[in-house]
């Protein structure tokens, strides 16, 4: 009986895995083929390593190594902003979960409202604010708005308010620990999973954001990878007939686009794998007795 329910579980999980992974397998194999072969050959056929090398040469040659610049820009923006998010959102979640200050509910409500507001409506006012601070064209105009991550605050808030046993904290307080010490030595270490989650989601949100950097940056050397990929997409003749007549000199076709895309998701997947380690079971086990 248990065996069948276990194999049923596995089959369902595996079927979903197929759904999620098949397009990625296609993407993974795409740079190994030529543009023509992409259309005519079997979706799962493997082309050759030579094509991958060629595709990389084309991407790298695009606008003198601009691709590398895009990746390093994204690392800078996402990395710095996420560092700030960790320093602000995790304590904020803690404060909102255990605090009793006046305005606690207000901060929660306002944060939720801002999260529900369509982001495109906020770009113009943020742009005007940054402009009045003379930051337009500066990388801070990307990093600072990225550092505002209400989703992270809420994740930390829900985590602390549902899973952190109050008894432990109250015990610490009775023992005479100040708020800060309690947080640093008890709440923070126990929050490794939520820190991993906030780090991860913030990094990915920043990595994948297109519109804000597009709006505030002035030079193509400052673009993050998302804006850059959009440029590459528009240089691919099959996506942009208007580029027709020049695709050959730019040499960006669909296999190149596929490779550019794959390389762009590597950092995200790397951060994911690192944060996954913190999502280990039973971290809180033993914190409370009886």
């Amino acid at each position, binding site marked *: 009986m248990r065996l069948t329910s276990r194999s049923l*579980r*596995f089959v369902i999980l595996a079927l*979903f895995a197929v759904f*999620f992974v*098949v*397009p990625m397998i*296609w*993407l993974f194999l*795409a740079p190994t083929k030529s543009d023509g072969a*992409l*259309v005519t050959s079997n979706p*799962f056929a493997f082309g050759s390593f030579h094509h991958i090398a060629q595709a990389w040469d084309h991407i790298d040659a695009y606008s003198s190594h601009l691709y590398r610049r895009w990746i390093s820009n994204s690392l800078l923006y996402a990395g710095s902003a996420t560092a700030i998010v960790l320093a*602000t959102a995790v*304590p*904020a979640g*803690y404060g909102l979960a255990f*605090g*009793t*200050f006046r305005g606690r509910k207000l901060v*929660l409500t*306002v944060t939720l*409202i*801002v*999260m*529900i*507001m*369509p982001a*495109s*409506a*906020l770009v*113009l*006012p943020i742009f005007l*604010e940054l402009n009045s601070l003379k930051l337009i064209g500066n990388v801070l105009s990307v990093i600072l708005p990225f550092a*505002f991550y*209400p989703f992270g605050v809420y*994740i930390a808030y*829900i985590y602390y308010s*549902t899973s952190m046993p109050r008894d432990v904290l109250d015990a610490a307080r009775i023992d005479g620990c100040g*708020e800060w010490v309690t*947080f640093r030595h008890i709440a923070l270490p126990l929050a490794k999973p939520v820190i*991993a989650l906030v780090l*991860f989601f913030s990094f990915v949100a920043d990595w*994948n954001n*297109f519109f804000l950097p597009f709006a505030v940056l002035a030079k193509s050397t400052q673009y993050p990878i*998302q804006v850059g*990929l959009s440029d*590459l*997409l528009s240089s691919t003749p099959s*996506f942009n007939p208007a580029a027709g007549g020049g695709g050959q000199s730019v040499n960006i076709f669909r296999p190149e686009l596929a490779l550019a*895309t794959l390389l*762009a*998701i590597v950092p995200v*997947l790397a951060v*994911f*794998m690192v944060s*996954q380690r913190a*999502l280990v*079971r039973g971290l*809180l*086990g033993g914190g409370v007795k009886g």
Partner: protein
Amino acid sequence: MQATRKRGLHAGGAQRKRDQGAAWRGLPFVLPYLPFLILFGILPAIYALSLAFTTSKGKFIGLKNFTKTANDYRFGPAFEHVFLYTSVWLISLIVFVVGLALMLHSRASKATSTFRFLYYIPGALAGAASVLVWLFMLDPAVSPARFLLEHVFGSTLFVQAIAPGHLPFIFAMIAFWTGAGGWIVVLYGALNTIPPDLEEAARIDGAGAWTIALRLKLPMIRKWIAYMGILSFATGTQLFVEPQLVNQASLGFVPDTWSANQLAYQLAFRYGKFNEAAAVSVDLLLIGLIAAVLIVTRTGLFRKED
């Protein structure tokens, strides 16, 4: 008697002190976040809200922007589209995400983290990056999912696959593909916060895997599911990325005002009608808020747990 009274008074003083302390407790932790909330959340939101009720010159005109946009020939279809989309997507998202998270959690193993990783990978692919992928996935001539497209959607050509009637389902599928993995990770982390002793106790009592999942674990992650519900409802009604990327992949076959959020974006940036765009954004905000209020009050999201 006197001693008790004395202690009582003393206790009262300490209580007052605790009350005074309570009025500020927790605030220092929230302070670093507040400047960002104000600068990039509250002030822009107020500006956007004020835009919805004024003209481009700043004159207050009440609800005129709202009536004007409601009469736009694209407004009705755009909202119809997102409502249909949201109902399809939201239900499948919550059911599958919760189900998969519970299934993954019931047996922690190497396979579990591998599955979690595989489910997540599409989430790393955003916007322009996925245009290429979906152009090929949705074209029956070249797609690995040709069988599905031909027999479920009845399409042998790309233009048939993205026919208007199919779009809510296509977008729901794409959005699920990109978004489910992330939520599964969140819920899995949430499930991890359940003390294993409880699970152990239930197992000793003879509860099977299903019972543990549905009767023990599910109620304990109620707040997380509520949060996912609120955000996903808002994300659903504010659909933007998926129709935009299929618009790009199909070179305009799918209109760039298919969803209400796309319409707001076009009004603002193509036509320069920021006030009207703000009105549509406020419409979307209100819809999201109604859902949020319903969910918050019924699940006690803001209440503090014991």
